[in-house]
């Protein structure tokens, strides 16, 4: 079973299919979920299998369809609302922040909203200013929402199943570049439950926290850093809210060095929160060194020469970590290793 490998796309599709089979309260909708491209394949076959009332495309009306999803959840359904770009969620913020996040609390627990909002982050190929943004820090900021950004096909399936079964609104964040990564995925259903991070590589010298797609670049950096004898412990938080700070803090207690690499801007971002929490927890342990990396603090440009500068990558992360561990004055930049251009997921389980 463990040698059955699926792509991230197929993992998402399978998780949705399994849950829809298991529970007829689960609905799937959003712009173009039922079109020939089936959200890059993640909804493939589901319109045919479950019919147009359970799986349907919508008008271009993000605000009302998000409000609609909330209404369905209030009625006891378990809607999955899909957005092909996370950028478009800016049109749904009122319903997500002012209604979805609030209802359970504001109504004294009388109602709850089992709702999953899937959205996809774009990258490369000139996605540019409005097709490349990752807004999960917005949703981490607001109590009442859960946020998850899996990186492996295994976690994609397990987190989506957990999200669908969760009785709260869950922002399920996907990264398009991860879509074609393959990895082992067990058949049948399983949950990767909220609030548990995963150590994806063990090491003694530095803790690398890689969020969403940056998890891949951190794993690349970890290989590069082996060249100079720096042993990285790489952590994938998976769930950003609730956030498993313990696993990260424990690792940093050991390594004394923390580098958080986000697939978003750093200011008031997930990396700020993780660094702040770790240092709050470890303030009785002096001498811990920290570093944040993420999008350059600019709008995402389309031209390739600038876009490559906009994102951290395995080499730039390795270089930054080298200076973090060895000291500001020490610098090093690894040679590009083609075999690190693509990393196959190995699990773990």
């Amino acid at each position: 079973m463990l040698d059955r490998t699926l792509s991230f796309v197929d993992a998402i599709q399978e998780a949705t299919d399994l849950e829809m089979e298991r529970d007829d309260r689960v609905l799937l909708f959003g712009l173009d979920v039922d079109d020939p491209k089936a959200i890059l394949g993640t909804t493939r076959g589901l319109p045919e299998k479950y019919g147009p009332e359970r799986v349907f495309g919508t008008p271009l009306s993000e605000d009302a369809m998000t409000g609609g999803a909330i209404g369905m959840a209030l009625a006891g359904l378990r809607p999955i609302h899909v957005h092909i770009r996370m950028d478009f969620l800016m049109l749904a913020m009122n319903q997500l922040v002012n209604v979805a996040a609030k209802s359970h609390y504001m109504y004294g627990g009388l109602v709850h909203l089992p709702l999953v909002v899937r959205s996809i982050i774009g990258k490369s190929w000139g996605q540019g200013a409005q097709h490349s943004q990752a807004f999960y820090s917005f949703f981490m900021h607001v109590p009442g929402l859960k946020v998850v950004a899996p990186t492996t096909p295994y976690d994609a399936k397990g987190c989506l199943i957990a999200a669908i079964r969760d009785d709260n609104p869950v922002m399920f964040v996907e990264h398009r570049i991860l879509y074609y990564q393959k990895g082992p995925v067990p058949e049948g259903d399983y949950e990767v439950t909220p609030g548990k991070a995963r150590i994806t590589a063990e090491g003694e010298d530095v803790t690398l926290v890689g969020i969403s797609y940056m998890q891949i670049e951190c794993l690349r950096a970890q290989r590069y850093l082996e060249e100079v004898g720096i042993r990285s412990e790489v952590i994938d938080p998976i769930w950003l809210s609730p956030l498993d700070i313990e696993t990260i803090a424990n690792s940093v207690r050991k390594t004394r060095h923390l580098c958080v690499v986000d697939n978003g801007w750093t200011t008031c971002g997930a990396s700020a929160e993780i660094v702040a929490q770790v240092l709050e927890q470890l303030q009785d342990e002096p001498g811990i060194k920290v570093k944040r990396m993420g999008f350059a603090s600019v709008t995402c440009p389309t031209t390739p020469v600038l876009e490559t500068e906009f994102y951290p990558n395995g080499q730039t992360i390795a270089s930054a970590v080298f200076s973090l561990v060895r000291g500001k004055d020490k610098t090093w930049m690894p040679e590009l290793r083609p075999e690190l251009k693509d990393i196959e997921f190995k699990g773990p389980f």
Partner: protein
Amino acid sequence: MHETFYRSLYRVRRVEEEVARIYPTDQIKSPTHLSIGQEAISVGVCAALRPDDVVFGTYRGHALYLAKGGSLNQMIAELYGKVTGCARGKGGSMHLIDTAAGMMGTSAVVGTTIPNAVGYAYALKYRRQDQVVASFFGDGATEEGVFHESLNFAALKKLPILFICENNRYAIHTHQSQRQCSEICDRVRAYGIPAERIEQNDLLHLYERVSATVTALRSGESGPVFFECMTYRWREHVGPGNDFHLGYRSQEELQTWLEHDPMLKIGKEVEDDRRSQIEAEVEAEIAEAFAFAEGSPFPDRSELFAHVYKGA
């Protein structure tokens, strides 16, 4: 029927008058938007609905909550911020809810419950249930884009939903004519949704028309229906007082509405002793509700962290 209507109108009116009377004592620490003058709309529509039908409303939600059968005790306790309130004191006047009575909630952000109501209606149709949803909102809410997105989707999917626009002509202190330049009903008809305007707080007519419509809606085939209900807010936008001194509207404008007050009109149809009996019963109920609220405890401080996540 007249008696039922009178009881309901009198009850809503008197509850809010009591809220207004108590307000200055500062026991109600919650922005309160009174429906006084607009009661007929909620009363007329809800009378045509079944208990298992559901409604969504706005921060101006006392009348709707009560007309739909929400617990009076829990409402007053909620205004007092007591743990016995319908939202355990966490929601206040702007967030009344009573799911048992089909009152599914209200929002302080204009227009936000409209798509929620539409989604609920989708769920009913999906499950082949014969309930209907009524979405209540003001004239101002029709200016929000989400109103149009909601109409389009509801019409496209032929959902069992009534859109009830309580047109009191004002958004806070701004007259409709300064915010819109065409008829709301025409805007709605453009979606293929039947739209009808009910003049002058005409409760009986509203009740008849909604009753007639709702039957077709239950089949799940007819699709949404829209009612623009002309009404008038007597008091200030928020708070217990009057606001004619502000000068954005005239006492004369109010006058015609006072003359057509449905409560008085329908009251005349009820024999005097029956009426005094109803009034006595309602007064007793109200007195008891305020006593209940005052006697109830505040939530324990530990409740601050309860209800952030379900099952956490």
